[in-house]
């Protein structure tokens, strides 16, 4: 794994924004790094919507919000002096995405953490950066935590957890 290949796993949360800012400020002006900002799609729960149309609409709104976030993340990184061609953004759709139903590479949605680590392994990323929102133990037990699972399961790479 190449430690200079950096994977920043994000959602559109403040914690993810902090992780991006941390990398931007740490590496701004440096060369030799390749950074990918990754989002694994977690579509709105289909069961929550009365019909397909409203579910698709919610999915579209979410996708717009995420893609805006990803563009902002890239701007944040390049704004700190990281070369634009060193920054890639990657949006991996869910396999049953309301907005990207025919995507070739997709997430089955069982575990976002495992999907992140699959991208990390396949892309030879030696450094993985992820935000953390500081959940209570009870919340972590009941709902799980992507960050905790990533730190438990990660192999052959360094994980930076930004809180």
């Amino acid at each position, binding site marked *: 794994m190449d430690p200079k290949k950096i994977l920043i796993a994000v959602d559109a949360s403040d914690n993810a924004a902090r992780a991006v800012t941390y990398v931007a400020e740490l590496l701004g002006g440096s060369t030799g790094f390749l950074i990918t900002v990754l989002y694994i799609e977690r579509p709105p729960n289909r069961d929550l919507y009365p019909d397909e149309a409203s579910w698709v609409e919610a999915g579209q709104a979410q996708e717009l919000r995420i893609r805006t976030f990803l563009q902002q993340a890239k701007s944040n990184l390049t704004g700190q002096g990281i070369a634009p061609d060193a920054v890639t953004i990657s949006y991996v759709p869910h396999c049953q995405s309301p907005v990207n139903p025919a995507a070739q590479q997709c997430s089955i949605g069982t575990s976002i953490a495992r999907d992140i680590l699959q991208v990390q392994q396949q892309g030879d990323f030696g450094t993985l950066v992820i935000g953390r929102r500081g959940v209570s133990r009870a919340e972590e*037990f009941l709902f799980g935590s992507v960050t905790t699972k990533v730190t438990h399961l990660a192999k052959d790479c360094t994980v930076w957890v930004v809180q």
Partner: protein
Amino acid sequence: MTNAYEIISRFDPDFPRKRAGQLLTDTTEFMNITYGDVIDLDGRYFLVLRDEKERSFGVEDPKYWVKRCRELPTGERKILKLVFYERFPVSMGSMEIECFRSPRKEARILDLVRGDMRFMQGYSHDDAAGNNVRVLDVVKGELLSLHVDRLEVDHRTYFFELLPDILDKFVEACRAIEFLHKHGENHGDIRRDHLWLEQGTGNYVWIDFDYTYEFQENPSGLDIFGLGNLLLFLVGKKFCTTFNIPRPDFDGKADVSFEAADFSMLFKNRLANLRKVYPYVPHALNNVLMHFSSASEVFYFNVGEMLEDLAPCLDEIRRGRINS
């Protein structure tokens, strides 16, 4: 047939004409559907008897979207759940999560568990307006928790004489939930009000699968926590709390000191460390309970893990009965 009375009188000639209401193929306005109305689901007729009620803390809360009915040709009692999209916060002790009612989810689970008597049975059918109506068989019996609460035995007798058989069935109820999880579903609202003891068969039957919430990294977590809570109730024969332990009629040891770590991770007044008040609770069983305490460092990732720990406890209690 063009009106409700015509239909009712054919199958129930004694029904008073003046109480016959509307004949409905569209259930969208469920608040206006009331006693004497007939719901026509593609030629199957359901006479509405009343709104279902949920009872908590002695108060009856009507569920206007759930109708107690009689299917007219057969006379069979049915429950019709009409479409009601509701978002509401659910308090889990100190935590609050947003829940949703999803007819689609419940309909899917009804299909999945058809013939599996560990779950309520029924089917779904769209009304003329496309509303997903769930037609449910009535589970005859009583809430398991009420049954356990009413058993007139002291805790020690309950624990050694009755609990092993109760836990045997509870393990099976847990396996039912595990079955849902293995099929990518969850119950969504595991609590005392949703597990019934069926009259006649003695089966434990899960009801109400329409709750859902946004996906999380651990989608089974809430269900497992719900099972843990039920287990606390069953082992204690009640929830042992900071309110009832000091009472003179409490049937366990009350003169013990408690720490925050002895209580549920979410319900801070609910004792998880039951061995403190009932010292004959075996360590192994208490260890299962302590997974749901605020002291816990590990949580069951799936139902199977919990059952691996729980199942051997039954024999231990039975052996304890012989020695006690």
